[in-house]
């Protein structure tokens, strides 16, 4: 069989398999029951505006607090990993490996229940402190590695030029290297922000007062109240409202970085 014909045949069979799959789904799925359970407009309407003004807002606030903390702490650990002082490098390595290996849910339980039990008191500013530390400390471990890679990706000539202008090593790091490193790592940094947006759904286990629920907890509560899965679908769409634009942004930035090189 000639090669072009074979390629065409294989491609044709792939399209046929896909078409068959769509057909099977369309015919076997009970559409009215899907609409009633997941896409009922009368169950979606009462979710507004609270799902946006309370739940989505809290998701964004928790994510932003955790991310701001993670960038600051991540930068410190990135610099420690690159430090000529050996104990600093050890400390940074231990921190990074610990938090990359610990499940977020376990860490949140530790902050919300383990620490108060051991000390006999809540963390100051609970639950916000637990939210910031809970989301921020593990994220800082990931960001530390990202930032370190970014710092190492800044061409050596930049440091050499800065030093030859009379800047000290630390001044060159702060004014020349770190700003360029952040420019390089904006795409992976944005990816981490997307991950954190979704991870914020776990903070509900810290305990939720009226008005502090984020999207997932809000969706679950409404699932219980309305006995219908539509709130979960709407909550999911709200996450996509945040994450998809961020994803598109990452793609554009990556394309621009690729062009610049």
């Amino acid at each position, binding site marked *: 069989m000639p090669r072009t014909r074979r390629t065409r045949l294989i491609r044709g069979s792939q399209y046929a398999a896909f078409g068959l799959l769509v057909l099977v789904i369309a015919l076997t799925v009970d559409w009215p029951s899907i609409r009633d359970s997941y896409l009922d407009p009368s169950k979606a309407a*009462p979710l507004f505006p*609270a799902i946006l003004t*309370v739940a989505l807002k809290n998701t964004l606030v928790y994510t932003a607090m955790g991310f701001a903390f993670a960038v600051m702490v991540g930068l410190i650990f990135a610099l420690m990993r690159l430090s000529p002082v050996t104990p600093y490098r050890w400390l940074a390595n231990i921190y990074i490996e610990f938090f990359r290996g610990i499940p977020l849910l376990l860490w949140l339980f530790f902050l*919300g*229940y383990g620490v*108060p*039990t051991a*000390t*006999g*008191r*809540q963390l*100051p*500013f*609970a639950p916000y402190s637990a939210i910031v530390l809970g989301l921020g400390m593990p994220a800082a471990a990931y960001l530390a590695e990202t930032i370190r890679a970014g710092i190492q990706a800044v061409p050596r000539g930049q440091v050499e030029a800065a030093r030859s202008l009379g800047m000290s090593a630390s*001044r060159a790091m702060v*004014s020349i290297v770190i700003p360029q490193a952040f420019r390089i790592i904006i795409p992976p940094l944005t990816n981490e922000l997307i991950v954190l947006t979704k991870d914020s759904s776990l903070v509900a*286990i*810290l*305990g*939720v*007062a*009226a008005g502090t629920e984020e999207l997932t907890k809000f969706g*679950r*509560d*409404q*699932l*219980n*109240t309305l006995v219908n899965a539509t709130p979960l679908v709407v909550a999911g769409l709200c996450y996509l409202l945040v994450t998809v634009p961020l994803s598109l942004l990452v793609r554009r930035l990556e394309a621009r970085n690729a062009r610049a090189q």
Partner: protein
Amino acid sequence: MTLRPRRRQRMLATVIALAALTLTGCGAGRSARVDGVSLVKGGTLTTCTHLPYAPFQFKQGAKVVGFDVDLIDLVAKRLGVRQEIIDTPFEGIKSGQDLGTGKCDIAAAGMTITDKRKKVIAFSSPYFDATQALLVKKGSGISSLADLTGKSVGVETATTGKDYVDAKRPSGVKVIEFEDLATEQQALATGQIGGAVNDLPVWLYYIKQHPGGFEVGTQFDTGERYGFGIKKGGNPKLVQIVDDVLAKAKSDGTYARLYEKWFGRKPSK
């Protein structure tokens, strides 16, 4: 050129100083005392509960309502403060942790008074008599745990119902644990489990909300009584006030009125 980095440094120092100031400044003046009762947050009676547990506490729109909520509102009114409800996992409530660490002043979570819990929580006088019950789908013919041999029975994490089933289940019955009441109910409704054990009043309310679908297969008379939880040894005055409020509500008919409002019948005594 040399001026700019230094100015930036000074700005950084100011920001750090401001952050430190806000961190230390806000800590003071949060807890408060009213009538000899210490409250973790001024002007507020903070209640820990685990939602949903209808009709004791559940969400109606954005508000948490229920029998427990109404009773604690009486206590808050007596103290002249507002009730704020925190929805938190039941493990933290029944272990006494949430009360001991000052997360809340009182726990109102349809909580049975047990000897084990008494070691870590100061309980109010009992405010409700409850028994455990097995909820099944209508017409399933299941009327005991033994009828579930080869099937699964659902329980809720950290509840007395779970302890009962763990102790009494026949060997052929698989126990599946659910994180909250709603997931347990959903599992039964969708046929993932053959029966679900939880407190009787909760099932009676559920049957009322979903007529025709479910029935109580059997009851397990465990002689359980609910109490409100308060920090062990930490707030004796609050225990006393809660007991006073409960006694007064029972004598002036408020308790009977609330009971009928949430359970659809008068209290037996």
